[in-house]
């Protein structure tokens, strides 16, 4: 399964819906997408990972890179994920403390913390 990416605007947020496998081969596509969005002035990103089947540390690196970019503009990067096998790698690496992780896009949009 390859990587699928789509974006939509919700108010001042941009929702990036990701599907498939984020690994050493596909992660550069996600990285380019995040860079393009920040370059275009989207600083409040929500990455919806509900359709992600696989995520490795390369993918985590891209998300950390994205967070770094939006923070430079006082922005935010929130994740939407409820799939246990994906959440596990965030827990193992302690990145649950770095990323706000929400159960739905609506919850992420409503979050203010």
């Amino acid at each position, binding site marked *: 399964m390859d990587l699928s990416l789509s974006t939509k605007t919700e108010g001042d947020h941009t929702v990036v819906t990701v599907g498939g496998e984020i690994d050493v081969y596909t992660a550069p596509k996600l990285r380019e997408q995040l860079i393009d969005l920040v370059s275009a002035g989207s600083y409040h990103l929500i990455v919806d990972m509900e359709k992600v089947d696989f995520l490795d540390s390369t993918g985590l690196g891209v998300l*950390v890179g994205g967070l770094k970019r939006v923070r430079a503009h006082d922005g935010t990067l929130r994740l939407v994920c409820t799939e246990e096998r994906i959440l596990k790698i965030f827990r193992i690496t302690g990145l649950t403390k770095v990323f706000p992780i929400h159960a739905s896009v609506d919850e992420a949009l409503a979050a203010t913390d």
Partner: protein
Amino acid sequence: MSTVHVSFTALPAHVRTARLVALAVARRAGVPDELLDEVRLAVGEACSRAVGINVGVAPEEPVTMLLSDDLSRFTVEVLDVGSMDGAAPLDPGSIEETINAESGADADAAVGVEALPPGFGLAVISGLVEDVEVVADGKGTHVRMAWPSTTVTVPGAQ
């Protein structure tokens, strides 16, 4: 004992193939279903790391993955041609600091996989797999990981 030997050019595109092969062999070896995601992720991390190392040191050298199962263990060994790097400590605090510290005027400089410390992949493997060993032998690094298995008897198999 039965073995499967996979050797592939150090290209990111082949890491997925290696994961699929490992998953198929693990399933056949009788690794419990609840551990298969762990096998897939750990093998992916080990192969990604090996691809990155070979590309940097000797791109023409293939990455090798050896899968074997005996009566009770399923073992995956991934071999590269580089020297050993240690597992980075998994410290979200330091990652957070890095994110904030470098969020300045230069933040549009390329960031991505380099946002995580070298050795992060090995640290993920160590966090995932109970039985893991990383050794260097002068020719390269071996990442050996093992899981419990119960070999499935297949009609006609030797």
